[in-house]
């Protein structure tokens, strides 16, 4: 294995480079601190626009500000509450009329990837529209 050269290309060296205990704890501490920074939940809210599909009832209010760090599952629960639907009632949700996200996808990630005109479109329906 190549010696530590400091070159960013030499990623193979990580597997065998013997860190001295002092060095290891310093870089690890710095890295752990960095992780804490990235773990901080986004306090920002993003605009979600709900659009009914087919026979689904249209809500009085369609635009909502939702905390970005929420999982999509929370959006589904929120929608159920607004529609006064029980957990057994069929509810299908889609982004941009195109796909159903995994329930643990975050609103933040979905917004960054799929927002149009400053909002994330969430379609809802009583039937599965897309197989």
């Amino acid at each position, binding site marked *: 294995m190549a010696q530590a050269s400091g070159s960013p290309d030499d990623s193979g060296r990580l597997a065998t480079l013997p860190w001295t205990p002092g060095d290891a704890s310093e870089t690890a501490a710095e890295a752990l601190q960095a992780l804490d920074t990235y*773990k901080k939940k986004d306090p920002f809210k993003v605009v979600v626009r709900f659009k009914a599909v087919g026979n689904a009832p249209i809500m009085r209010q369609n635009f909502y500000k939702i905390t970005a760090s929420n999982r999509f599952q929370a959006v589904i629960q929120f929608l159920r509450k607004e529609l006064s639907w029980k957990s057994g009632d069929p509810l299908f949700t889609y982004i941009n009329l195109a796909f159903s996200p995994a329930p643990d996808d975050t609103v933040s990630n979905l917004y960054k990837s799929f927002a149009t005109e400053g909002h994330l479109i969430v379609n809802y329906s009583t039937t599965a529209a897309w197989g």
Partner: protein
Amino acid sequence: MSAYGTTRHHGQQSASTTPASTTLFRRLTWEGTVPLEIRVDSKELPANSDRGLECYYIQAPRVSYLPLLMPEIRRFLMDVVFDEAAGKMLKEEEWWFESEEGTLLKWHWPIGLIYDNHTISASIRPSSQTSTSHHNLQVTPLKLILHLASPPTEKLLLSPSTESCKQAFMGQLKEADFIRWGNTKRMTGLRKPDQDGIWEGIKEHNFDDYWRVASKIVPTTAPARSSSPPPASSNPSMHTRPPSADPQSAPDRDGAYTVRSVPVRLYLPDGPVMQDVVSPTLEDGSAHTLAHYLSTHLPLLFPPAPYSGPELAYALIHGVLVPPDAEMAWLGACMAGADGWVSVCVGIAR
């Protein structure tokens, strides 16, 4: 073959126009496996179980899913561990898995991702052994505890049924399709036999069955109309520059480098998961590399050049330390998971 005419409105893509190196990496990705050690929670072993034999070892495909392993695990438990009465009571819909550290394992995460996520989570826990650093990336079995009842459904969010797994898988493929092109025409254009076929490829773990359909939706790295093979090196390895990186080669409309965004997710130890637009090329026209992606999203862990300090973190894709100059578009075409997503797992260097 007649299916091609109706579903495809762009250049034909067949086995002969996909470069050998692309197929090689797709096959390597497909054939990757991880060792799992599955043990029923001893508190849940019914009376008359044959204790001492309750560990089941399996070398599982990275691209498969936990629910797809359940029939095999069930057969083992029935044959070896449980007596007949207890065996009859087994209800797979109540099963759930957690790691030794108490992390709940998700049904819709590919097994390879579960494994790599565990590797990076372990990198932030203080090591109890005074081992040398190479133990970080040694391949050791991932120990799973199988619970047979009371699944925490509000956290699992999905049931462990095969049908549920298929829906989640197809959903991920559609999301990836949308990320790439801003629409899901390629997915919705698939006829039912193809849609079922791609999932069968996963269930049966058959590379050809999977790619027979996947080749219609996953971008390739070569111009579609090229008749001669690009000047690839004779020894494809992780460090070879992909042929399509040559700026002179004509970009094809559906190629890896013409997508609007590459489907990529970034996993940190114990979260969060990050996802946003990853363009194949940067503003200056150069290819978007893994190094650029990491230093843009995690500058505190991957300081941008010039940086000459010690490495703070590493990035794994399918358990492999990918070179920083790997191109995101190439990764999207050659090293995505079977669900279409490039999963980058970041761990702490020790």
